[in-house]
């Protein structure tokens, strides 16, 4: 029983991290209609920035995380300007290939700049809390709480600010008439900035538990894709739901089925879903 609760909490932790990454991915997809292959690598860079802020400059964890968010926002905007904006009118497979190029570039740059070693963001909240017989590190609770706070913040941003609701309108209705008078460029840049901040927050939160290394973006981006396919590409609630479904499935699957094949689970779910419903679980529109 305790094991079940323990693994559920782990699943929620995992789901929280996935959620922050998948939310950004789905936002970008909604606005630009391009699966941003490099998104996992923004997450990776975010992890490194926080790590170096703490270890090189001795900054506080939270300050480092904020700086990392700012740096990533800039990087996200650069990515939009240099890669996706110029490709706006290209065929969709070319956009995808450009995103792959950006991903390879970021990963290789990280290897060149920072080496291939595994690093860990210093843990400052590693006390163990015992709750109802379940032992948890504080960091796990911080991850879950942090993700919830950011999700609420995102919700408020989208529902209660002009620009936020513009993003939502654009995501839901790309070529509708309601878009008259919207500065598409500004919205695109802002979306990339917000998505990158979420990715960097995910990495800062996860860094003390999981590790920081150049390849860390590859696996999470694939999982984020699985999530947004489950949740419907471009859908925000779908991404949240999909993240926790995947986090819990993986965590419980690893315990009760096979830890060796834990990473296969995500992809198997996707293959299963698309085999049954080729247009995704929550597809919109006719046909």
């Amino acid at each position, binding site marked *: 029983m305790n094991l079940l609760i323990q693994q559920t909490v782990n699943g929620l932790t995992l789901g929280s991290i996935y959620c922050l990454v998948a939310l950004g991915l789905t936002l970008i997809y909604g606005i630009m209609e391009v699966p941003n292959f490099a998104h996992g690598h923004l997450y990776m860079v975010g992890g490194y920035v926080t790590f170096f802020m703490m270890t090189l400059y001795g900054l506080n964890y939270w300050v480092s995380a904020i700086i990392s968010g700012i740096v990533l926002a800039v990087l996200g905007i650069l990515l939009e300007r240099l*890669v996706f904006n110029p490709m706006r009118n290209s065929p969709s497979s070319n956009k995808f290939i450009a995103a792959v190029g950006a991903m390879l570039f970021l990963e290789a740059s990280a290897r060149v700049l920072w080496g291939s070693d595994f690093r860990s963001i210093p843990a400052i909240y590693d006390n163990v809390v015992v709750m109802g017989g379940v032992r948890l590190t504080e960091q796990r609770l911080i991850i879950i709480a942090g993700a919830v706070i950011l999700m609420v913040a995102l919700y408020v941003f989208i529902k209660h600010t002009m620009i936020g609701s513009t993003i939502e309108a654009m995501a839901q209705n790309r070529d509708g008439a309601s878009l008259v008078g919207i500065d598409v460029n500004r919205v695109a840049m802002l979306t990339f900035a917000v998505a990158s901040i979420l990715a960097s927050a995910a990495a800062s939160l996860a860094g003390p538990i999981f590790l920081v290394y150049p390849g860390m973006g590859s696996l999470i981006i694939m999982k984020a894709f699985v999530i947004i396919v489950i949740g419907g590409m471009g859908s925000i609630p779908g991404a949240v739901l999909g993240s926790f479904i995947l986090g819990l499935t993986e965590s419980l699957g690893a315990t009760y089925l096979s830890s060796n094949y834990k990473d296969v689970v995500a992809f198997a779910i996707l293959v299963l879903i698309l085999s049954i419903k080729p247009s995704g679980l929550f597809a919109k529109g006719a046909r």
Partner: protein
Amino acid sequence: MLDGMKKSNAKLIAYGGFLAVAIAFPFISPNRYYLTVVTLGFIYAIAVYGLNLIVGYLGQLSLAQAGFFGLGAYVSGLLSLKLHLSFWISLPMAAVVTTLVALLVGLISFRTRGHYFVIFTLCIGVIINLVIEKWDDLTGGVRGLIGIPRPTSIGPIDFISLESQYYLVLFFLSLTIFVMSQIASSLVGRTFKSIRNSEELAATLGINVMRNKLLAFGIAAFFTGIAGALFAGYIRFIGPDISNPHLTFEFLLFLLIGGQATIAGPLVGTLIATGLTESLQFMQEYRMVVFGALLIIIVKFFPGGLVGAAMKLKTKIEKRMNKANKSVNAPSKGENHAAKNRGFN
């Protein structure tokens, strides 16, 4: 009619030229190292031809290709290592198994569309990669397969020397190029291209889109499987890495550098990219930094790759020469034709 003959003559000359150079290469190559690099390049090129059929001609961005390459390599490697089968049995087996798996994958993945297809095939690639890595008992997990036997000799011909292996790979490469160019110039290849251009229109004209996609996907996998088996027999050590999606991305890069939907593109791109990689050894670290940026620049500015750019240049020059000719001997047949066209517009 005359035009067609001219074209097929030019084609013959191009093939003859390539074959002559390729056959002479071991004799003129200054050192054996180049020979190993080119052999490996040829093997990759076979897989890239497969990718070209899917991405270039059919217009479907499949990211499962490294998975199929790895599958071919492991099937062939395991059959010759564990069951001691001859290379000449394990190679076709590898091609057949890879094709069957691909057909199964295609049956599901071609029901999805657009980005779903790309993500789906990527996931298939990852699954194959993970299964190879985790199925320790069969595949040796991350340790890989070591000591895969060389291709079995056929009568008096053995494949021990580097040269003989080079010629073996060259044989399969030529076969691949032959098959691909036959397909590309036939109605079958045009059908693929029409699907790339507009699936809806093709279906409206009575073309069975699903069957054609499966056909292209199967043939691509067949050759990718052969490439995998050749790799296993040549390198003789394989690890899960050869099925990693990163290899798919490299294939994609090779294809884009050379030029998609062209017959020379995959070979040109693969040789140039692997050649560059090898000659820039000192900057091995920076390789993917450069390639990543290159990929973006190519899709943005040169979507036709080197071969595409060359063909564009050629038609431009021809046009200019035609014009020059025309102004010399006034109302030629070409002029007449052009005038009519103008009238129509």
